């Protein structure tokens, strides 16, 4: 029933890596390391460009309009233009700001997202590293982005920024608890905290994904994950740290040009990472959605795993966008109420019930 998969091909390998290893056995480690980092960097650089375009298009279609249309096919190059423009824009620092912290802050959220990405299992053999305590690593690193926002708010010498940062700090610390508890739930049922291990524990048909495998509880846990991760991402309806109509720009009020674009980019990479984790935990990661009919499953399996991973991730990202373009924003105290009075107790109950399920063996 709940056995760990036997596939233990560590370290992760793939065709490119094998080729390098075959031809340059001496420096293979360095070359492969460089290649991984370069490709990951490329991904980090290109993902937001695509995601920002997607967000704007999706938003537009939610609002009965077209969105970017005039730069490239259906505005595909719109975010490229935005990025380029921000790159060549004057960088300003307000008087009285802490110069070092002010310019360090935007780098942190981006690097946090980048670091978490290193352990995302994109495919069977497409993962930079798979530490045994992957889940703990994720939780540890994601605090960095909060730190970046707090630093930005503090260093800006602006009351709006400070308010935004404080809101963000309180919010993220609270919701991290929920997030950790939901991850704990998955770790509890899979028995591993390696992300690859978690994906592999969902092998089989669609019904073996954790969202369905735990009867009802999986769905509830998924919903709670969506809520807390939206809050963790500072996205509407939990975007109180930016809250344009209240705090103008929140923590990023004083940032311009490239340093603002770092925040902007990090927001979207973080969203990707968060959605990727949702796919990993609940939607079977890179596994194809098999339905138990041999022929169709064969076709589905033929499609490479990373395509499935991206599809699922984009699906979750779409959910995030759907939330954002539908709901009004919560107030700070309501946000805290939601976490401490609703999500956290519900989480604990869920953990307990799952424990009972595990003991009785009710998992599908």
């Amino acid at each position, binding site marked *: 029933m709940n056995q760990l998969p036997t596939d233990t091909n560590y370290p992760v390998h793939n065709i490119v890596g094998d080729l390098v290893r075959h031809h340059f056995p001496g420096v293979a480690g360095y070359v492969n390391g460089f290649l991984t980092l370069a490709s990951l960097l490329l991904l980090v650089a290109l993902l937001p460009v695509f995601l920002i375009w997607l967000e704007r298009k999706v938003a537009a279609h939610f609002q009965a309009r077209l969105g970017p249309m005039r730069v490239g096919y259906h*505005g595909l190059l719109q975010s490229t233009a*935005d990025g380029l423009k921000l790159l060549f824009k004057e960088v*300003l620092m307000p008087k009285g700001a802490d110069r070092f912290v002010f310019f360090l802050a935007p780098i942190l959220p981006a690097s946090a997202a980048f670091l978490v990405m290193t352990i995302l299992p994109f495919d069977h053999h497409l993962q930079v590293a798979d530490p045994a305590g992957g889940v703990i690593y994720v939780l540890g690193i994601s605090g960095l982005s909060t730190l970046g926002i707090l630093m930005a708010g503090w260093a800006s010498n602006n009351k709006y920024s400070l308010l935004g940062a404080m809101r963000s700090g309180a919010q993220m610390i609270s919701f991290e608890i929920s997030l950790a508890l939901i991850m704990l739930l998955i770790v509890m049922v899979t028995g591993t905290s390696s992300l690859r291990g978690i994906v592999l524990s969902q092998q089989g048909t669609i019904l073996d994904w954790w969202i369905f495998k735990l009867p009802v509880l999986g769905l509830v846990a998924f919903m709670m994950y969506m809520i807390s991760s939206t809050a963790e991402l500072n996205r509407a309806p939990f975007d109180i740290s930016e809250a344009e109509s209240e705090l103008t720009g929140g923590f*990023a*009020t004083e940032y311009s040009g490239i340093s603002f674009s770092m925040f902007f980019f990090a927001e979207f990479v973080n969203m990707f990472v968060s959605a990727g984790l949702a796919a990993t935990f609940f939607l079977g990661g890179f596994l194809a959605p098999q339905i138990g009919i041999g022929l169709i499953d064969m076709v589905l399996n033929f499609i490479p795993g990373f395509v499935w991973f991206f599809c699922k991730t984009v699906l979750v990202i779409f959910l995030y966008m759907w939330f954002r373009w539908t709901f009004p924003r919560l107030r700070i105290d309501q946000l805290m109420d939601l976490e401490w009075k609703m999500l956290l107790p519900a989480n604990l109950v869920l953990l307990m019930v799952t424990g009972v399920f595990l003991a009785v063996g009710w998992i599908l």
Partner: protein
Amino acid sequence: MGVSGASGVTEQVAEILDKYPGGIRLVDSIEYLVAWARANSLWPLIYGTACCAMEMMSTGSSRHDWARFGVEVARATPRQADLIVLAGTIVEKMGPNLVTLYEQMPAPKYVIAMGSCAISGGPFYYDSYSVIRGGDRLIPVDVYVPGCPPRPEALLYGIMELQKKIRKEGRRNPWKVGKLLDTPFVDTHSMAKQEWTAQEKEKESGLQLARERFKTENPDYKPAKPQRLAKEKFAAVTRVEVRNNGLDNASILTAVQKVFPSVTLFRQTDITPDNVAGLGPEYILDLEIGQGQYTELVRFLKEDKDLGIDLLLQVTAVDWQDHFDVLVHLLSTRHGHKLFLRCPVAKERAEIHTISDIFRGADWHEREVFDLFGIRFIDHPDMRRIFLQDDFPGYPLRKDFEDPERVVKRPY
């Protein structure tokens, strides 16, 4: 880094690359790319003062959707904005704030003046004591979009014109802070007239002979009569008199006169209730009372249960050259009748007791009267100017207000 901003970086890069073969072409293509990016990524600042802001919002709405141009990323903070659309009237008090906003934006930054007010003051060109005639007196404007307010399509056209302008930017034509309009405000209407009259006079002297010749050659000349446009004719319609709801004037007056016998009616000699009843239902009772009993009367009107007056419409004033009248307009939401009250205030000692302790709403109304008429309200909790800046000279709604620096009188 200065105001020139990022163009400095491109210049440095250009200097290095120019030395190598093909370098110039590379620099040119980078320049082209940067100009392209800037033109297609204009993030506007959320800034709007008046009517034009609504049309700006309409431009952002689904129907017109400025997102198609990549303009929908409206930023609330000037640090991230590239474009400021001057939508609406700019008044003197807002001026410094607008300049600050502009200065807070990182270079390169662009300005569109939208609508007549932002271009030249528009409807407030003459006679206004607070409007700045043209946004380009404060910050340099790149594109002027005329209209009042311009249609969303007109604004989109303006944005396209701006894009055209940005696409031409490069090393030879770098972005720089534009020029401000520094000519003093002139009465263009009278100026045109004067210039024309002078020109005509000059011309006239040379035309005497030609005229006389024409007259002798065509003695029967009769100019064609201009065709008047046939305008639709309408019949006069008798007006249905609107009734004044609630208590009738006569009974209100009787009730007031019982307690305040010294009360009179404005511009009415005969103040008996019978006469007032004859003035018709549309006449609103216009009581006049001296300063001594002013607050008591207001308090009485508010507290008297039978009169049922509960809402203060406004407190205002009028300048009768020799004295002021402070006007208090009251309404009964329960019955529907209105009641006006006035109290003369001397010009030399423009002071009157406040009624903000009776009606809280009077607080701001009295501040407005103080601001525009200079009538001081005794015991008012917060007697400051409400609309104008503290150093504004004089009180503009007084009939003798003159400020040639700010106000240019309508020429006709």
